[in-house]
């Protein structure tokens, strides 16, 4: 039981990871894919934070009255990862907007016939 509780963050990580990956793979909507990607990335954030936790220690913000802190390194790393994740999401959403503008859809199955490699280069195709 205590193991189950102690490992709770890792279970959360696994659930989030699988959920995110599933959405990325199974969803045809580009924005939903990005959301899935976001969830997938968040699972990693949780994983790193969970790694850094020290039993009975306080979060790694120096404060009088505490001597035992969790490992700050994973948090620092994940700060970078969060920034990267946000940037990726931003670029992805911007692309989704542009795709919607040029193709009129962000549904993968509607995009598929419009992006076949056999099609002549643009313009001719849009007529």
């Amino acid at each position: 039981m205590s193991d189950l509780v102690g490992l709770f963050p890792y279970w959360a990580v696994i659930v989030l990871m699988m959920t995110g990956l599933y959405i990325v793979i199974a969803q045809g909507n580009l924005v939903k894919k990005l959301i899935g990607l976001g969830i997938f990335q968040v699972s990693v954030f949780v994983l790193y934070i969970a790694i850094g936790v020290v039993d009975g220690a306080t979060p790694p913000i120096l404060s009088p009255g505490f001597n035992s802190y969790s490992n700050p390194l994973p948090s620092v790393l994940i700060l970078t990862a969060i920034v990267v994740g946000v940037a990726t999401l931003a670029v992805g959403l911007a692309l989704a907007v542009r795709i919607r503008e040029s193709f009129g859809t962000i549904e993968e199955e509607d995009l598929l016939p419009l992006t076949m490699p056999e099609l002549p280069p643009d313009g001719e195709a849009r007529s």
Partner: protein
Amino acid sequence: MIAQNAAVLVVVLPLLSAPLVALIRNPAIAGAAALVIAALDAVLATLLLCQTLDGTVISYHLGNWAPPIGIEYRIDLLAAAMACLLSYAATLVALFLPVSLQGAVSPGDRPRLFAAFLLCLAGLVGIVVTGDIFNVFVFLEISSLSTYVLIAMGAGTDRRALTAAFDYLILGATGATFFVIGIAFLYVVTGTLNMADLGERMATAPKRAILVGSSFIFVGVALKAAMLPLHRWMPNAYAYAPAAIGTFLAMTATKVAIYMLIRMSDFVFDTPGEIGRVNFAALLPPIGLAMLLAGSVIAVTTKDLRRLLAYSSIANLGLMLVALGLGGVAGIAAALVNLFNHAIIKGGMFATTAAVLHRRGSTRMEALAGLSKDMPVAFGLLVLGGLALIGVPLTAGFVSKLVVIKLAFDQANWLVVGGVLLTSLITVAYIWRIVEAGMLAVPEKPRPRRDLHPAFILPAGLLGAATLGLGIWSEPMLTLASRIAAQMIGTAP
């Protein structure tokens, strides 16, 4: 001063100048600035190569924090050689980048494109010079993000660039996340992110965690390396990105992924003589052979030159993986020879293709009709590159294939011998499609003889000359590769 700090300047220079270039309003000036910065970076990389040629390993502690706490920039011969490849590629591409953007990307967007280009270079060089595995992830993302933007900029000529960029983004971000999960596992069991340390502490670390961690890393890198079956992003990315960018990516992006495999050979796969590690090396030959076969076969059926070259790149990446999988100093050396030679060969072909695109507005096979008549130099360069891809003697491609086949022969690995030899034939088939399209097909209307735009002559010509030169005088490349490999494995060169 500069020589001492070259290790960090080689990353910082393009990284910090990128936003400044984005602020320049005049696209011509911005393009020139990008060229100058790439060239300076090439000088810095050359300095690093000179310093590391004798086996020295430069260790630069960022902010004077000693590793493993601080981030270490660790430049051995492999890193220096890769930095040279990346920065030279950037310089050559920057030479014709502005010209090839004419009519493809609006002038207002160009400064931002140049900035993204420099950022991409910075990210790639960063991956190569850093000694910290989390830093690898960060630089990987910097280069990836700018790559997505760069690919999307191809939407000016073909809107499919957008979906290509999006697909790559999803896969790239997923791959990077896998990579970072892998790092987490390794960090938990070793307590370090410094790759040198990581290698050492791995021996005593719990095996299962290493297995899980390196599996994640392997999948992450496999995505970046366009490893079958995770290759799907690549052909579209190369075909729809602005042609010059496609050239740069072909020369660098997947090469860096192979670099990562080599760099992480300590903990991603077994190195000879060490027992108990996860043996990913065994996976590489079958994957590589499958890529070799699939890439070549699909290349035969494609209708666009850039797509064809992209699928051919998948085949060539397969060859590198095969070489890597053969293992040992010789395997790594063979993979490196392939890596550098292929960057040169494919770079030359993509640059020439960019020149053709600039003149003809299309790289579809039927647009090549009459090429040998009105763009004979371009056609010659394409044929030369094609012969190199086939592996015709006196080209760098022959040397690349020969080292792999010889190694496989010596190991009596008949599957690899047969596979590599047989795929040469498929290569003949798709290269000959180019030859027939350019030499024998009758163009709809005769065109005036206008060969390569001058901006393309130097880069395409240099790469073509190197394709030939390294096929005849292959010794420097072979020596470099085997020295790097020896340093990697830790045996005396």
